[in-house]
């Protein structure tokens, strides 16, 4: 039976929920190929906890490579072990987070394999996989067939709901670290600054409140109360990030995070092609903008032509009043 390999993402010792989207993708691939799937967990001491957690998702086994040299993620140290585990597999996949996007192309090159990035759907064409993926900022969906022995793909988190637990837990098998090459010896991990937030992560959030250039230095002052009221994550346009109103990793768009929440509230965002590419899959879109001609209104289910500095506080009050009324 052929095998599909899912590369799990572990950060600070815990499993990233995004991994479960790649598991869903792998299950679809298995159905088409008549294959089974394994999940590979790499990390420093303590990564076994994530492996333990992943036993419950229907894999044939969880492979665990636990080594002090894998405590901090560096592609050059991870890629050799992933490529070794991928040998003989039909497909290797991971979710297209900054981890998956960094690592899997490197793995593909190591395997001389063809690659499909940020896949939004998988189709079964007579037992052959067809990868569907957005191109041109989501303005065209391309279908691609990969003919290498192993195919490598990353998975758009917003298009594949995280897998649920199923069946009896599978075994965990420890695997050894593969020797890293010259590249690994020339890279030094210096630091990672993780911004701690009370809010849900953009990729997992059911509601997102996103601010644009117009929110200015009042970014958090204006958006935080609304996000709190809605239990929402906070996003931003590039202009807001570039101006320093919001951290860079809040950016939603073609070249930022791709999101598809139930509700996306765009506040003072014009709706440039690159921004729309990251949020047009949202179920319901609300736009608040003073310019009735702003392109965001062509996309919005509900448009409110109003000054955001009045509209947002009014919205917060209305939501509070609604809650109080039960």
């Amino acid at each position, binding site marked *: 039976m052929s095998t599909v390999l899912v590369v799990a993402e572990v950060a600070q010792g815990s499993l990233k929920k995004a991994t479960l989207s790649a598991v869903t993708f792998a299950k679809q691939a298995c159905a088409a190929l008549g294959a089974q799937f394994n999940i590979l967990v790499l990390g420093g001491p303590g990564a076994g906890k994530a492996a333990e957690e992943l036993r419950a998702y229907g894999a044939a086994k969880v492979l665990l490579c636990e080594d002090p040299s894998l405590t901090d993620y560096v592609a050059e140290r991870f890629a050799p072990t992933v490529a070794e585990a991928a040998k003989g597999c039909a497909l290797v996949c991971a979710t297209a987070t900054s981890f998956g996007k960094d690592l899997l192309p490197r793995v593909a090159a190591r395997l001389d394999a063809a690659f499909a990035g940020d896949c939004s759907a998988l189709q079964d064409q007579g037992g052959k996989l067809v990868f569907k993926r957005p191109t*041109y900022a989501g303005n*065209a969906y391309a279908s691609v067939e990969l003919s290498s022995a192993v195919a490598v793909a990353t998975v758009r988190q917003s298009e594949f709901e995280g897998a649920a637990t199923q069946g009896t837990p599978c075994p965990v098998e420890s695997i050894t670290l593969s020797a890293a090459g010259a590249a690994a010896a*020339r890279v030094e991990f210096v630091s*990672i600054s993780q*911004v701690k937030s009370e809010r849900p992560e953009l990729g997992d959030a059911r509601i997102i409140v996103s601010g644009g250039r117009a929110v200015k230095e009042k970014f958090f002052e204006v958006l935080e109360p609304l996000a709190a009221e809605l239990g929402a994550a906070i996003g931003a346009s590039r202009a807001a*990030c570039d101006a320093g109103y919001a951290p*860079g990793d809040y950016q939603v768009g073609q070249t930022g995070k791709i999101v598809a929440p139930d509700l996306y509230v765009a506040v003072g965002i014009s709706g440039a092609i690159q921004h729309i590419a990251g949020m047009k899959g949202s179920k319901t879109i609300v736009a608040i903008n003073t310019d009735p001609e702003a392109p965001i209104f062509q996309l919005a289910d509900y448009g*409110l032509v109003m000054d955001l500095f009045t509209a947002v506080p009014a919205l917060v009050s209305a939501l509070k009043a609604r809650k109080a009324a039960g």
Partner: protein
Amino acid sequence: MKILVAIKRVIDPDNANKIRVTSAGDSIDAKGLEWKLNPFDEYALEAALRLTEDGKAPKKREGEVVVVTLGPKEAETQLRAALATGADRAIRIEASDDQLDGRLVAKALCSVALTEKPDLILLGKQAVDGDSNFVGQALAELLDFPMATFAATINEEQGAVLVSREVDGGLCTLRLRLPALVTVDLRIVAPNSVRSLKTAPEFKYNDGVRFAPLPAIMAAKKKPLDVKTLSDVTAGAQLQSRYFKFELPPARKAGIKVPDVATLVNKLATEAKVL
């Protein structure tokens, strides 16, 4: 420092919503749209120039910047523009987009890098036509180079670069000993994002990329531009990805404007049922 910058022309990204699919459905029809340099490659070039100069004397190149593209003859427009902006030499590998996938591009660039022996290779984090985000990482693996993707800042050190990368949840800083490879993200062209050892710590660049003055555009016509064939640099490797169908996304159904906040809340609760 010698820097190799891989650049690609793409269909005008600001009009990407005007592309069509050919009637056969197997390729993109971009008739009437302009070609532009991939924005991330424009930023990679700007970063290369900043790394090979003293910020206050940008006319003098300290080292060499070589730009390379895989593309048809028309892509020389973008190469000449890069030469006018400050690159020293250009290489074009004759190919049309349908002859290429990321794997072949990486193999071709690998071959160029083995000949050119740059200290640093800079690329965009993604070409905004295919949105693949693949070539840089693959090239680093083929060359066994250390890499830093999605770079927000690059600071030159003695024999190394210190790179801050934009990752989920924050910034990750890596130190790469040269030769190395970096793919750049949007904020690499901010005033303090890139600094060579020559540039004073207090020096601030203008935000964004520089533009070529007219005399430089004339002078660029005389700078060297070599052309190679694809078989020169891919040793007969074949395409392994077949893009056989393109579809436009389904249109979103038109929404409405609401007159006030109360109506909005009401619609969200009763119609969209998201509250």
